[in-house]
């Protein structure tokens, strides 16, 4: 008798706990939905659209002939198929790496100049953040579909997988320390399991996103740069092959997800 009542109490407690957790998540989701209405990333989109058409660099040409993988000048849907292999550079490239290539080959910028200022700071806007916002927005509503057929793409996936699980640094951390298990979170920020198709599809295609806490659009390059900083690993280079490989690794699981970027985030 007593045991039964105890059981009932425990069951009730467990049930109440689950209900509270659900409403918290629902409330966070409601907050996120409200933010979508006034997404400042749209301002970056407008800026990016202008930059794309503006003749710049020593060659005084625009980026309108830039090949993002769908042919020169095709922006629509390009972001949903990145990262991918490019024959002219013989490399797997993500959107930012490709933008740097175009800025060097088409516009004639010296490579160091094309790589400068990738992440904005107050009073120092970044043309990359604007351009990536514009390019990503042209794939909104499509299905993510990064190709995984070229030997270099398969190699990049394998390198990315090794990097994902490689523990290093003073904290002995890897990406997998946070992102290889379901249901983990830091405070109220849930940590997706990035090699789980359901969670990767939900999260990966929401980048780039406007970070309210930083007042800027942050790209996938910044997200991974920041992850490495948080793990206290040595800084990884902007548009480095390591970052691209990690993106290919995540993209494989995220393929099939709905492109939502640029979004607005905490």
């Amino acid at each position, binding site marked *: 008798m007593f045991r039964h009542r105890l059981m009932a109490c425990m069951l009730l407690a467990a049930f109440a706990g689950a209900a509270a957790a659900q409403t918290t998540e629902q409330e966070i989701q409601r907050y996120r939905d409200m933010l979508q*209405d*006034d*997404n*400042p990333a*749209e*301002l970056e989109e*407008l*800026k990016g659209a202008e930059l794309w058409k503006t003749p710049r660099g020593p060659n005084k040409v625009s980026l309108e002939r830039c090949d993002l993988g769908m042919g020169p000048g095709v922006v629509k849907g390009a972001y949903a198929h990145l990262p991918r292999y490019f024959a002219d550079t013989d490399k797997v490239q993500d959107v930012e790496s490709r933008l740097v290539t175009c800025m060097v080959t088409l516009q004639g910028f010296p490579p160091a100049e094309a790589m400068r200022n990738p992440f904005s700071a*107050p*009073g120092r806007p970044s043309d990359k953040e604007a351009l990536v916002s514009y390019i990503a927005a042209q794939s909104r509503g499509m299905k993510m579909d990064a190709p995984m057929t070229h030997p270099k793409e398969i190699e990049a996936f394998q390198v990315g997988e090794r990097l994902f699980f490689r523990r290093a640094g003073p904290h002995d951390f890897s990406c997998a320390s946070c992102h290889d298990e379901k249901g983990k979170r830091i405070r109220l920020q849930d940590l997706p399991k990035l090699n789980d198709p359901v969670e990767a599809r939900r999260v990966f295609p929401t980048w780039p996103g406007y970070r309210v806490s930083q*007042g800027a659009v942050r790209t996938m390059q910044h997200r991974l740069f920041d992850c490495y900083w948080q793990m206290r690993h040595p800084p990884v280079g902007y548009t480095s092959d390591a970052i691209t490989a990690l993106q290919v690794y995540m993209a494989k699981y995220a393929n099939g997800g709905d492109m939502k970027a640029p979004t607005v985030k905490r």
Partner: protein
Amino acid sequence: MPDPMRIRASMVGDKVDVKVLMAHEMETGLRKDAKGQAIPAHFIQNVTVTHNGKTVFSAQWGPSISKNPFLHFRFAGGKPGEKVTITWTDNKGEKRSDETTIAGS
């Protein structure tokens, strides 16, 4: 010139529903930079919305409005296809004016 605004205007019932997203730093003047120097105040002071040459909305803003302000309001008397113009002026005298056409509901 300051960056463009993003404006959406559509009919909701018999009213025009206007949503405006403005690109502005909205610096309060109270923050300090890495060297400890105060960052000069820079914020939108006046917002005016006109429809057919008539002011339908005007506001005086201060430094407590957030960065990249979002403004949402409704007014009566507009029809689809008509123009709505939004103008802001900031404390440095910079000005930006953008226009949109009212969409159907």
